[in-house]
């Protein structure tokens, strides 16, 4: 069964003026359970909007979103989604461990169990020694790892990531990508990942969804059949380069012929 099933999804933003903005148009997409799908496209192609529609943070204007057979709304209320943004959006008044525990608190998990879960999550992202630090005492990459740990703390079936590594330097970024793949393997979470970076999309994904702008449409879907597990060698693999080229050409076609 598809984990996420989009059919005919469109989103139009009503602006205060007379002109409405069509952000998404006729998006249909099936994401299999346990799959890693990236959304890539030029600015304004609505990839972040699509992520929010899937997460039930924005209602679609038309079309349906099903997540494990239920509506996106039901899925959100059933805590199906973990969400990670470009900014770590940690709560500065909470320690690292307390940030990870926040969703668990809201979901009513007993304290002792929460503590244990936070420890497990910190182990998972390699920050076991930083449990009692405050967010501002961590580097950007570490903060983002805390955000990932927090998003996964309640074991959501779907992890939605909106340019999570966009603000990181290249070295940190590549390390985080490998970390994320390892975490994906360990948790078997379905991941939808929004990015601007072609190599990032290819390196991480099992499929790359190329979107065109205004209105956002799916222009192409590139299957990435690179062997798992992926690592440093993958980035030097000719197959990796040819896939990067393929995605790049796909994006270029959009720009030439919108």
């Amino acid at each position, binding site marked *: 069964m598809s984990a996420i099933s989009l059919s005919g999804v469109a989103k139009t933003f009503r602006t205060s003026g007379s002109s409405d903005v069509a952000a998404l148009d006729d998006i249909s997409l099936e994401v299999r359970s346990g799959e890693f799908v990236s959304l890539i496209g030029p600015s304004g192609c609505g990839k972040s909007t699509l992520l*929010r529609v899937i*997460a*039930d*943070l924005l209602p679609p204007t038309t079309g349906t979103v099903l997540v494990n057979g239920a509506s996106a709304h039901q899925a*959100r*209320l*059933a*805590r199906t*989604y*973990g*969400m990670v*943004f470009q*900014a770590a*959006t940690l*709560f*500065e*008044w*909470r320690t690292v461990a307390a940030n990870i525990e*926040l*969703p668990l*608190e*809201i*979901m009513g998990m007993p304290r002792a169990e929460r503590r244990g879960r936070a420890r497990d999550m910190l182990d998972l992202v390699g920050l076991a020694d930083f449990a009692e630090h*405050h967010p*501002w*005492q961590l580097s950007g990459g570490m903060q983002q790892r805390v955000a990932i740990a927090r998003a996964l703390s*309640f074991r959501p079936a779907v992890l939605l990531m909106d340019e999570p590594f966009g603000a990181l330097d290249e070295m940190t970024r590549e390390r985080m990508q490998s970390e994320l793949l390892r975490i994906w393997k360990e948790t078997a979470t379905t991941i939808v990942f929004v990015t601007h970076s072609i190599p990032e999309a290819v390196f991480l994904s099992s499929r790359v969804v190329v979107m065109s702008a205004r209105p956002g449409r799916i222009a192409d879907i590139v299957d990435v059949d690179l062997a798992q597990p992926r690592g440093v060698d993958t980035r030097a693999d000719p197959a990796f380069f040819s896939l990067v080229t393929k995605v790049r050409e796909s994006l270029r076609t959009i720009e030439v012929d919108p």
Partner: protein
Amino acid sequence: MRAANWRTVAPAVVVFAVVLVGWEVGVRVAQVQSFILPAPTAIAAAVVEQWPTLSAAARGTFGGALAGLTVGAALAAAAAGAAARWSGFRAGAMPLAVAANSMPIIVLAPVANAWFGLVSPVGTVVVVAVLVFFPFMINMVKGLLSASAAHHELMATYAATRRNVLWRVQVPAALPFVFSALKIATPLAVIGAIVKEYFGGPQDRLGQYITSRAGLFQFDEAWAAIVVASTFGIFLYLLILLAERRVIGWHASLRTTN
């Protein structure tokens, strides 16, 4: 740490001492009349001599100020909660609050006597409460609305209740604003209580003490009351700084590490 602390306060202590000595010497050398400016030693002597009367008066005045501060803050918290919750109420109430905040509300002090009777302590509490209500409310509304959209989206993915969002996100985010309000409102409360008493109220209060002693040309005693009021104001301010460090040590303005 202690040595460093001493080094930071030393300049202030030295300046304070120089001002006091200069004042004493100046008054003596120029033979300034005591009704214009009494010498610090004369004021100190009056504080000691008048202590039983002064301390009783101060208890009444400061009690009224603190009661008014508490009532005003509590009412402001309720109003701010409503304003943050209902945008309609906010749109209606905030312009009024901002306008009222720029009004010198203390000018109502004489009127309070007409409302509550000349000797009722309620008048002071009401004047102070009205005086501090607006800075509290404006800051609290700003604080409650200060959490980012991403934080709210995050809470939505946890399917958090409104109450959870209020207590776990909005209220902690508002705390720095509450401390800003406290720093403005506390001196206002002391000023408000004393000025209100200038126009009437129970006889054993600092405001009445100051006006009656000034009327009798006992200016060192009037000054003694001023010193007591100032000392209390400084004490309250330090108390707030201390509490701030404890409660919102995580806030950017107070971070001591990194």
